[in-house]
């Protein structure tokens, strides 16, 4: 695999005064944050806080109603150079009705990679996630854990500079969850910037370098993980960590 580091032209990500309204409801309200060059950011917060929404806005799947999302050198989210260097793993991976191997080759083809190189890169990614024997199996008949690992392998093959994960383990059993967490660490070790949503406090403690706490569409805290869990500065975050209902 090509491990040559790419020149830093993507991060930091600057989110400035972003709001998102849908059908007259304000789902995100004046959100500002900065994601630096490295680390694992975990977004936490109760249901409906806007965690997935914020991630989709950063990834460029949605456009904000107000405010701006800028990558390095002021590049917009719609810039093809920016889009091509991100990947996202969803809660429920969408795999195409073709083999596991072809599922990884597909986005490489979209990026214009040559056929032979595609197959090589895809096989490497499958091997890295322990899926090499399943290369020719139809992706849709794999187990839930295998499907999520395949989605991670697909993201791996894209060699993204930043990886978004939207509650990647919420539908998985403990063994599959551990595999995902190991994968997140592997991405991080390779220098990939991690942004992840989770409901799982234990998982957040295990993985987070810094925590972004959202509640009712607003950012209440963005602090290093240690400080967030030990001395949260808002009563909402304190209640959330204690496992109480927050709304």
């Amino acid at each position, binding site marked *: 695999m090509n491990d040559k580091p790419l020149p830093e032209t993507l991060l930091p990500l600057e989110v400035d005064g972003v709001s998102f309204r849908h059908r007259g409801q304000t789902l995100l309200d004046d959100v500002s944050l900065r994601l630096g060059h490295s680390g694992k950011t975990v977004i936490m917060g109760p249901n409906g806080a806007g965690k997935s929404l914020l991630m989709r806005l950063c*990834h460029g799947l949605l456009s904000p109603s107000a405010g701006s999302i800028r990558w390095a050198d002021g590049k917009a989210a719609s810039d093809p150079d920016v889009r091509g260097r991100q990947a996202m793993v*969803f809660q429920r991976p*969408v795999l195409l009705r*073709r083999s596991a191997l072809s599922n990884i080759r597909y986005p490489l083809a979209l990026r214009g990679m040559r056929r032979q190189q595609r197959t090589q890169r895809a096989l490497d990614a499958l091997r890295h996630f322990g899926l090499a024997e399943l290369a020719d199996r*139809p992706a849709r008949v794999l187990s839930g854990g295998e499907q999520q690992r395949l989605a991670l392998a697909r993201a791996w093959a894209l060699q993204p500079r930043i990886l978004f994960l939207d509650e990647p383990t919420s539908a998985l059993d403990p063994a599959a969850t551990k595999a995902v967490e190991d994968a997140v660490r592997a991405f991080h070790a390779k220098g990939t910037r991690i942004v992840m949503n989770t409901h799982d406090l234990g998982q957040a403690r295990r993985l987070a370098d810094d925590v972004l706490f959202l509640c009712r569409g607003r950012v209440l805290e963005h602090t290093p993980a240690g400080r967030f869990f030990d001395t949260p500065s808002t009563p909402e975050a304190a209640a959330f960590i204690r496992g109480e209902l927050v709304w």
Partner: protein
Amino acid sequence: MVDGNPFAKALELILGLDQVLVGIVTLSLQVSLTAVLTAALLGLPIGAAVALYRFPGRALVVTVLNALMGLPPVVAGLAVYLLLSRAGPLGSWGLLFTPTAMVIAQTMLVFPIIAALSRQVVEDLWEEYREQLQSLGASRLRAIPTLLWDARFSLLTGVLAGFGRASAEVGAVLIVGGNIDGVTRVMTTAIALETSKGNLPLALGLGIVLLFLVAMVNATAFLIGEGAKRRLG
């Protein structure tokens, strides 16, 4: 005109590969298969494009496509007749009362079925795939072949339904083909004619072949759908 049991005679025609019968069946298959292929090549991508793109008048297009699924074959035949008749806009092509005219008429009948189904199936699939495909970097245009391929088994059922409609209709091919012996006579028009003439063995023989073909098409559609669900999830 005919003596003996018409059923026995009909089976004799089929099993003996009667030349007239074989000629009619062959032409029927040629016309209907060509029409279905043409309708699929046009209808699948057009239906998918309507599913993925938002444009003014889209609701009207969807409504018209759905309504045209029930287009009466005689009306389709009449429309093609008016287009191709000597005085019509395409009269100079000299296509009226040829198999090509029959292909055009049947394509008109089958296209709405395939396009409307493609629109529906691809739109549902897009709902599921949209974020993931966008995330992977696929444009809407690039997503069309991907979605059609992933919906291939549902779409095949629609294409086979289109073949069922084409091979079973009589009104359109009768009007634009003229039921000319040895030139434009297909199974359905021949059955109508031979029955009215009292030539029951040939009519029955053709009827049996037609039934058999339609049953085969339906069985194929069912088996492909079931097999795909089991193998590919």
